[in-house]
C-alpha cells in the first residue's frame, strides 16, 4: 500500500472510533457512562486521525502531529476526570442501575467536615481562586 492509502485507512479508523463515541454519548444512561464513551473513543479516534495526517504529510507536519497526540493523550483523560469529579460533587445523580458506590462515603465525609473542607466540596472554584 502506498503511504496515502495507509493515511486514509488510519483516518477512516479514527473517524469510526469517533462515531462509536458519539453513539455512546447518545445511548448510555448517565453522565459518568457517557463520559466513558466520550473520552476513550474520541481520544483514540483523534490519535488515529492525527497519525493518518502524519503519515500523509511527513516531515515537519508529522512531528507536529506526534506532539499533538502526546498532548491529547495527556490532557483528555484529565478533562474527563475533572468533569466526572465535579459532576459527582455537585450532586449529579448516577443511574439507578449503579451497583456499588464507594465514592459516596468519601464525599459525605467531606460535606460533614469542618468549614474549609465543606466549602471545598460544595464550591470548588471559589475557594481555589482565593
Amino acid at each position, binding site marked *: 500500500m502506498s503511504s496515502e492509502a495507509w493515511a486514509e485507512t488510519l483516518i477512516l479508523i479514527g473517524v469510526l472510533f469517533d462515531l462509536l463515541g458519539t453513539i455512546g454519548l447518545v445511548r448510555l444512561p448517565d453522565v459518568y457512562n457517557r463520559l466513558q464513551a466520550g473520552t476513550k473513543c474520541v481520544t483514540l479516534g483523534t490519535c488515529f486521525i492525527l497519525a493518518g495526517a502524519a503519515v500523509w504529510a511527513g516531515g515537519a507536519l508529522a512531528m507536529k502531529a506526534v506532539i499533538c497526540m502526546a*498532548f491529547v493523550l495527556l490532557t483528555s483523560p*484529565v478533562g474527563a476526570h*475533572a468533569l466526572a469529579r465535579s459532576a459527582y460533587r455537585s450532586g449529579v445523580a448516577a443511574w439507578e442501575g449503579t451497583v456499588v458506590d464507594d465514592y459516596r462515603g468519601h464525599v459525605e465525609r467531606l460535606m460533614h467536615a469542618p468549614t*474549609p*473542607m465543606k466549602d471545598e466540596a460544595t464550591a470548588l*472554584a471559589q*475557594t*481555589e*481562586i482565593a
Partner: protein
Amino acid sequence: MQATSESGGGLSPIVKTVARWMAGFILVFGLSVVLYGHLTPGGGFAGGVVLSAAFILVVLSHGRREVLQILSERAPTIYDGLAALAFLLLAVLGYAAGGFFLNFLPKGQPFQLWSGGIIPLCNLAIGVKVGACLFGVFAALAVFRHLHQRSA
C-alpha cells in the same frame, strides 16, 4: 502547595499535576506561533491567546497564589502597556526611514525566521499584548471580585 493537602483544597491532584506539566509546553507552543507568524498560519493575535491560556490554566487549577509567584498583580497591565508602546515605537521608527509603518529592516531570505523585516517584531509585540490583555480580563473577572467579597 504544601498548605493544601492532597485530599483537600480545590481541584484534584490529577488536574494539578497535569496542569503543572503542561503550562510550560503551552507557553513554548504559543511563542512558536507568535514568532513564526510570518511563515506559518498564526501570528500575534492567535499566539497571544495561547500564551494567556497557559496562565489561565494555572489560575484555574492552582489558584491565584501560584500565579502571583510568577506574575505580580500589576504585571498584565505593565506588559500590556509596554507591548503596545513597543508596537507604536516600531510604527513610528518607520519615519526615520521615510514613512509611517515603513518596513525599514532588511528583508532577509524568505522561509527563514529572520525575514520580513519588522513583521516578526510586530508579531511579538502584539502577542505579548494580546496575552497580557486576555489574562488581565480573566484576572479582573475572576480574581478582583473575589478580593472585593473578601474585604467586604
